[in-house]
């Protein structure tokens, strides 16, 4: 359909010399007269980075400096300290974030693995299997994304009390799985539809069952998409406050970093020196996970899909 539109488009640009295969975007970028395009990209990148950079710098400044001068003044008046991080991580302090790191890890891993696997299974069925009520069910699953977590707090907690898992990691894992499924099914279904139908047909003709197709064909092809969504779910779970607070309770034995961060400033006022260091401690692990997996984003969401 795009080809038709191109034919009708007015031709006013010079014909580009030279060959070479490149993506449309690269072509567009190259022709968006380079200097201001690059400038624009740099401006956006700077705009997006400054807030985090400001907090990072702040987290290394002494408390009194933070309240009396802007972080940018370190350029003319460098004065750094590690004290904020020591307070936030020291094992003596009751504000310490350290014990909650392990809780965050224990909460997050199952809360990512479970929904991702279940959602891939369901998305496969919605995309490539025929059964009655398929479309209605899919729309329902999609629409349920909108249910706000807040309305589920009391019904779910009552349920967990009944089956005696309230205040355990099980309650948190199950809840995150439930809340993560609709979006994961919706997005994976969209990626899955882009896999050429001929591939699946061919496999069916060869006598492969759905379980075989799922493991041999779908999982390998969807690996980048699953990884990308897995990161999304990981960030969501890692950064969640309300689910953990409600279903795990406020016991220090279960509390993830977000809960610890909530109570970090204690009853005192705007303690930027603690907040800035605490916020950075909580960012480190998701940032590492993201940076180590980001190649999946950069390459595209389908392995081996045909492209230029």
């Amino acid at each position, binding site marked *: 359909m*795009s080809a038709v539109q191109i034919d009708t488009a*007015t031709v006013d640009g010079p014909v580009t010399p030279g060959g070479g295969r490149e993506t*449309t*975007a690269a072509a567009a970028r190259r022709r968006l007269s380079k200097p201001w395009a690059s400038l624009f990209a740099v401006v*956006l990148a700077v705009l997006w980075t400054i807030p985090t950079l400001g907090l990072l710098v702040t987290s290394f400044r002494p408390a009194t400096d933070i309240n*009396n*001068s802007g972080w940018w003044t370190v350029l003319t008046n460098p004065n750094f300290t590690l004290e904020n991080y020591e307070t936030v991580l020291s094992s003596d302090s009751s504000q310490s974030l350290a014990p909650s790191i392990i809780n965050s890890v224990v909460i997050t891993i*199952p809360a990512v693995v479970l929904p991702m696997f279940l959602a891939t299974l369901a998305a496969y069925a919605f995309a490539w299997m025929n059964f009655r009520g398929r479309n209605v069910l899919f729309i329902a699953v999609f629409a349920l994304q909108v249910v706000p977590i807040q309305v589920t707090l009391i019904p779910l907690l009552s349920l967990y009390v009944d089956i005696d898992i309230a205040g355990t990691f099980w309650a948190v894992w199950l809840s995150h799985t439930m809340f993560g499924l609709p*979006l994961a099914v919706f997005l994976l279904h969209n990626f899955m539809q882009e896999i050429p139908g001929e591939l699946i047909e061919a496999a069916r003709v060869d006598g492969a069952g759905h379980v075989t197709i799922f493991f041999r064909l779908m999982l390998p092809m969807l690996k980048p998409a699953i990884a990308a969504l897995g990161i999304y779910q990981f960030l969501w779970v890692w950064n969640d406050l309300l689910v953990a607070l409600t279903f795990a309770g406020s016991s220090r034995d279960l509390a993830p970093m977000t809960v610890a961060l909530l109570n970090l400033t204690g009853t005192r006022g705007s303690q930027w020196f603690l907040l800035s260091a605490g916020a950075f401690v909580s960012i480190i692990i998701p940032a590492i996970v993201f940076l180590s997996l980001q190649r999946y984003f950069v390459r595209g969401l389908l392995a081996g899909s045909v492209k230029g």
Partner: protein
Amino acid sequence: MQAADKLVGMVVALVAFAVVIGAILLVVHLLERRGARRVAWWFIGPTLLLIAVGLVYPALRTVWRSLYDAAGTSFIGLGNYTDIFTSGEQLVVLRNTVLWVLVTPFVATVVGLIYAILVDGAKGEAAAKALIFLPMAISFVGASIIWKFMYEYRFYDPAVENNPNQIGFINQIIVWLGGTPQNFLLNSPWNNFFLIAVMIWIQAGFAMTILSAAIKAIPSEITEAARLDGVSSLQLFRFVTVPSIRPTLIVVLTTIAIGCLKVFDIVRTMTAGRYGTSVVANEFYTQSFSAGNQGLGAALAVLLFVLVVPIIVYNVHHLRKASR
């Protein structure tokens, strides 16, 4: 509980999950060997069960609860809904929510798309993308802390000599440019946009990564053909790039819009819904768990479902077109 115990507990849980799912799939596999055709329910069963328990049941309960009064003892029909639509403050809450849903997805997607195109294939693409995506790795609460710090206000009176130094970067820029610092979070309705900016800051990275992947998947033949026709870059963007990634664009817009409908932490952390910035999710929480009016809270949540109907209809429309 010791750290080791927790980790062991986690591994046990994962193994248990693998065993259960493995058993289910083995059963399906054997059924298929025997020629069974209808195996789809085994695939979607676990998902449907969890969603039914975790989302459908609470949602239905909420609808039901919205028809009762604050204490939950007497049935008042649509009383809570008329309360919402006749209360100036609740209308502001609805207005703010609509503002979030309209502005955030659009701006975040446009920024993400432009950036994806600008850095596509450029030197250091991965690093450039990481800069924009990094805010995604920050929790809503963390992002709110960061932006509260950006917006931080210290008064500035030209008549007085020793004004305090600004510690918020945006106000410092205003001062450098010769302006008067603003208390950004205070003045309604503009303060809503300063909260929305935080969400855009977070979600642009999401839009950028997904759209960038879609752009890379556009077959090069199309580009070549366009190039041979000598179209300009803007035309290429408008007539090739955008149509090719339209399904992805819709997915991205939808996902961000639904995220905005549910936005809670940002508002809670930055203003707690004061100064005319409350949104539905925050108001639900306040009404249900502070003000002791679960009926009104439930009615607000039901309005959320209603607000999402247009988005669902649009997507269903597209789904139909795609599967045709």
